[in-house]
């Protein structure tokens, strides 16, 4: 039966909560007015307190002084994302801790439920990993420079003519030094890409020009393998991508195609319309083809078909994994179509960008709804920009609250796409700013968040037209914006007028 729980039911629930939380390895606490009113044993252990000591203490007592401001901001923001801070044990030592906070009701009063986890080990692993990458990057390359340099000079006869057998052995050693260098470069590249550490510089690219220059770079290699390359351009629309990285992907696909083509074969590079809103680059070879089982594994690390054959041709087994990561980070997709015995076609698609003169100077430009994207993550902002521009919106981007306030002072957009977690505060600060600024009160806001809205969030939803959970589909975003700009804005005005 629905209704308020009886005392007995409440006691049962309290008991259930205590039993479950006592079994948890994370520290769990309930805060009223930011003071600890309940805590499990793990919470006491985490901070070196006897359980009895900690009840009644403020949250600040278990947070290192340098993190207290960050925790206060996190609590005020209402964010439900994990927040990494420094915790403080009873003995004064500090450590890395992850804090997750939820608004709850405890014995009838608004409270906070808080889960805390020691992440010292994870942080240490991250640090060791970064250090390792740095060591690989420098410490391995330095001796390799000496090895590769010495072998190159000897092989070329720069220090005198070598006997034929010694020259052959030197060539083998130099080729394998080159292979080791490529492998180190590929491992580092993949690590950086997958850790999100690469900075993509997305611009409108001239795909035919980019393809032509890549093909020119590989003509020497193609001649070596007695393979010819031709190009077929069927679309000249600009595409959104990082030029260096697109060249890297195309070089990888093209050099694979050359290596695995028979002598006298032709490799064809095509640029053509792809799926809706995308441009497709494809590289077709006349090689042996790939079975469907092998195709499924091709884009994973160290996956080489006929390993001995591939090694003979100098592959590292990472090129396609790198290409896939790079394509996906640029908002595209990659794939292969192949029939054993009939060659293969590797392709990737990148988003088209609207031609720059679509709106410029026309009456339509004035009517085109401008969207302010407030998002601190460059990759997310970039993808949003591409989606919105493709739908005909002009876009202004702000990466912080301060930048968003400046953009709003300069020009009123039609709607705001708002990330709630920003480097200088919460998205709610901007929502409050909008509410208090004459001329902006009606401005619709679409929230982009990693978490579902909490009860507190819903209370403030008057200004939030839509709350989208990342990741979201392009059509979902565009529908929400359409509602924001037209339908919902109107209905809200109507609601206010009638109030």
């Amino acid at each position: 039966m629905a209704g308020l729980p009886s005392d007995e039911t409440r006691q049962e629930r309290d008991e259930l909560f205590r039993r479950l939380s006592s079994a948890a390895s994370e520290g769990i606490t309930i805060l009223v007015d930011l003071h600890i009113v309940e805590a499990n044993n793990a919470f006491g252990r985490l901070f070196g307190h006897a359980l009895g000591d900690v009840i009644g203490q403020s949250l600040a007592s278990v947070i290192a002084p340098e993190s207290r401001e960050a925790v206060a901001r996190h609590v005020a923001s209402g964010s439900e994302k994990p927040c990494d801070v420094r915790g403080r044990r009873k003995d004064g030592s500090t450590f890395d801790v992850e804090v997750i906070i939820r608004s709850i009701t405890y014995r009838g009063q608004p409270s906070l439920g808080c889960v805390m986890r020691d992440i010292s080990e994870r942080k240490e692993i991250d640090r060791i990993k970064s250090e390792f990458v740095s060591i690989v990057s420098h410490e391995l390359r330095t001796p390799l420079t000496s090895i590769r340099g010495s072998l190159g000079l000897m092989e070329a006869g720069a220090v005198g003519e070598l006997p034929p057998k010694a020259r052959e052995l030197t060539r083998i050693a130099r080729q394998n030094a080159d292979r080791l260098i490529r492998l180190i470069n590929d491992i580092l590249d993949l690590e950086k890409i997958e850790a999100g550490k690469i900075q993509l510089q997305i611009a409108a690219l001239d795909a035919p020009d980019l393809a032509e220059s890549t093909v020119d770079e590989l003509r020497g290699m193609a001649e070596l393998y007695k393979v010819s390359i031709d190009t077929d351009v069927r679309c000249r629309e600009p595409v959104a991508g990082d030029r260096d990285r697109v060249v890297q992907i195309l070089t990888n696909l093209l050099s694979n195609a050359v290596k695995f083509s028979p002598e006298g074969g032709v490799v064809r590079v095509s640029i053509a319309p792809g799926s809706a809103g995308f441009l497709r680059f494809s590289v077709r070879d006349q090689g042996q083809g790939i079975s469907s089982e092998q195709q499924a594994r091709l884009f994973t690390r160290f996956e080489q078909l006929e390993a001995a054959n591939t090694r003979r041709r100098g592959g590292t087994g990472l090129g396609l994994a790198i290409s896939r990561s790079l394509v996906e980070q640029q908002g595209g997709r990659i794939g292969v179509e192949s029939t054993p015995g009939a060659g293969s076609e590797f392709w990737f698609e990148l988003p088209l960008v609207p031609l720059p003169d679509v709106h410029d100077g026309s009456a339509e430009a004035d009517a085109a709804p401008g969207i302010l994207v407030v998002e601190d993550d460059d990759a997310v902002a970039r993808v949003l920009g591409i989606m919105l521009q493709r739908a005909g919106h002009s876009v202004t981007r702000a990466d912080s609250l301060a930048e968003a306030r400046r953009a709003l002072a300069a020009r009123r957009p039609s709607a705001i796409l708002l990330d709630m977690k920003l480097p200088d505060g919460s998205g709610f600060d901007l929502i409050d700013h909008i509410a208090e600024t004459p001329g902006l009160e009606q401005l619709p806001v679409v929230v982009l968040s990693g978490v579902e809205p909490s009860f507190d969030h819903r209370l403030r939803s008057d200004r939030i037209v839509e709350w989208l959970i990342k990741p979201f589909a392009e059509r979902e975003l565009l529908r929400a914006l359409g509602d924001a700009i037209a339908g919902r804005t109107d209905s809200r005005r109507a609601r206010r007028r009638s109030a």
Partner: protein
Amino acid sequence: MRLLCADDEEDIRTILQLALSLDPELEVELVDSGEAALARARMAPFDAILLDGMMPGLDGYETCRRLKADPATADVPVIFLTAKTQRAEVEQALTLGAVACLVKPFDPMTLAAELRAALAR
């Protein structure tokens, strides 16, 4: 063309000497630190300076900054030869006034040509 090269690794200096001597028009002087590069560059005229990025003491970046801050050496083109190849590091070198970044490991047979091409750009 007079070229000053700074690298803290003795083996790499040996290879640089051999690789660059393949170009008969290059007159190469090698030093083992950023401090020594600064001192030599102030004492004698060079047409270009090749700096290792990572060196103990004054690293290549700080050496480049000081070369560019000194009117006596500011106009000498600086090229980095570095094992660190991340875009941020290349940008840092270019921001400091270097004309190019060449990558380690390098091909000794083409190093002199790459150096000349970078200077021509």
